[in-house]
């Protein structure tokens, strides 16, 4: 029971509780706030695994970008006072049962499968495993393990996204 494990337990409890609260709370602005907490907890997991750049990207893009976008659109469309509409009891029960059955199946598979964990992983707290330098080399290299093509594809996707967002949301 070292410090790393205690941090993991706290983060796991935080993420699990807030992800359930995201989908059960009645007010939509609260759901967005709880989603923000879940995203921060996931960034904490990335930091705990030694993936510091991925954690920073998570905080910047998800917590800083997407959640702000959601809050703005909630305020633009329905307003913070708007509560989520009621769903019938039968539908909630059916969704709950199917979700719990799915969760049980997935947990059964995860817990019975013998994962071949790599040697030496998790014995000591991890430092920064993959540096910015390495990430840059991988992103712009064209050899076998390079990611130049997906990098350019994502840049084209973001351009298409900007244009599409402007065209869809503009005033006619």
């Amino acid at each position: 029971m070292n410090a790393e494990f205690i941090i993991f337990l706290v983060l796991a409890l935080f993420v699990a509780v807030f992800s359930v609260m995201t989908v059960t709370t009645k007010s939509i602005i609260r759901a967005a706030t709880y989603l923000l907490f879940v995203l921060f907890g996931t960034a904490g997991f990335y930091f705990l695994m030694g993936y510091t750049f991925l954690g920073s990207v998570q905080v910047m893009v998800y917590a800083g970008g997407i959640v702000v976008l959601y809050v703005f659109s909630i305020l633009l469309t329905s307003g913070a006072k708007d509560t989520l509409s009621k769903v019938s009891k039968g539908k909630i029960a059916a969704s709950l049962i199917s979700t719990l059955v799915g969760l049980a199946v997935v947990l059964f598979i995860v817990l019975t499968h013998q994962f071949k964990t790599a040697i030496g992983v998790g014995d000591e707290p991890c430092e920064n495993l993959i540096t910015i330098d390495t990430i840059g080399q991988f992103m712009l290299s064209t050899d076998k393990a390079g990611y130049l093509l997906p990098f350019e594809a994502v840049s084209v996707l973001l351009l298409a996204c900007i244009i599409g967002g402007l065209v869809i949301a503009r005033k006619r």
Partner: protein
Amino acid sequence: MIHVEYYLIVSAIMMFAGIYGFLTRRSTLAILLSIELMLNSTDLNFAVFNRMLFPEGHEGYFFALFSIAISAAESAIAIAIMINIYRNLRSIQVKHLEKLKW
């Protein structure tokens, strides 16, 4: 030490919370929030598999990175569509979106 199963349990809880929200919510923005939960849990899975099972490779890391970029693009477009729907219908509840129904 932290086993890979522990991360996967948290990720499974996040995933199925998202699925539950997707099935029960009736406001399109709340459905999108549930989709973000599901995407986030898959990102966590990619990073965990990379870190715990193949720490010498980088595939899961970059997959998670690109997945974050794509989900940002997806939610931006979806929110543009929501704003357009609200401008036309004055509501973003799912039950009012029936123009395309037969």
